[in-house]
């Protein structure tokens, strides 16, 4: 529980896309603002579909939005 091993650049990408608000992004990808907040705080790892939707909104590849860091025990 807590911080996930998947981190993201959503906050930075929002800033570089005309300072898009969390609410605007939430509406575009079809989730609540709370979910965007949880993702930005690395408290929630989105589904693959949602991850692709977010990457598409920012017109960048998935790897530019999300990055995965393996834990020491390999999980």
């Amino acid at each position: 529980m807590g911080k996930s091993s998947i981190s993201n650049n959503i906050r930075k990408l929002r800033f570089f896309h005309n300072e898009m608000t969390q609410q605007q992004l939430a509406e575009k990808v079809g989730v609540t603002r709370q979910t965007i907040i949880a993702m930005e705080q690395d408290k929630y790892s989105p589904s693959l579909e949602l991850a692709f939707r977010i990457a598409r909104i920012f017109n960048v590849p998935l790897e530019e939005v999300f990055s995965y860091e393996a834990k020491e025990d390999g999980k």
Partner: protein
Amino acid sequence: MSFQQRNITVSLVTFILILGLYMTRVFQLLQSDGFTPTNIFRLWGITIILSIVATIILTILAHIGSAVFQVIKTGDENPKIEDIQDERDKLIDLRGTRVTYVASSLGVLAAMLTFVFGQPPLVMFSLLVFFGLLAQIIGDISRLMLYRRGF
């Protein structure tokens, strides 16, 4: 706090109150020698109906309360309430339901154990409702924890 979190909080408070009322009534019956099948099954019925009705009414009130809160906060006459359930809400709901089922199953097992210790069936039936309500409370707490701590 999101709309879903408010709903869970309302449910949590409701079930804590119902459990409190149920326990108070059971102890009253025990002290007044009224711990009879008629009284206990009547209490069963009242508790279950109260749980359903209170949950429905309080959910509606929470919805109205959210709308009023939004109007006061934003000044918008047609407030937009985020009452959609997205993938995160569904996942948290599923995990919470799993916790509720596990707690409920353990409760049923504990209630059944009273037979092993030679207790009358009424004790088992009283404990079934107690653990049912407790499982709901534990499930709601786990949902709120998942919202706050993340997963």
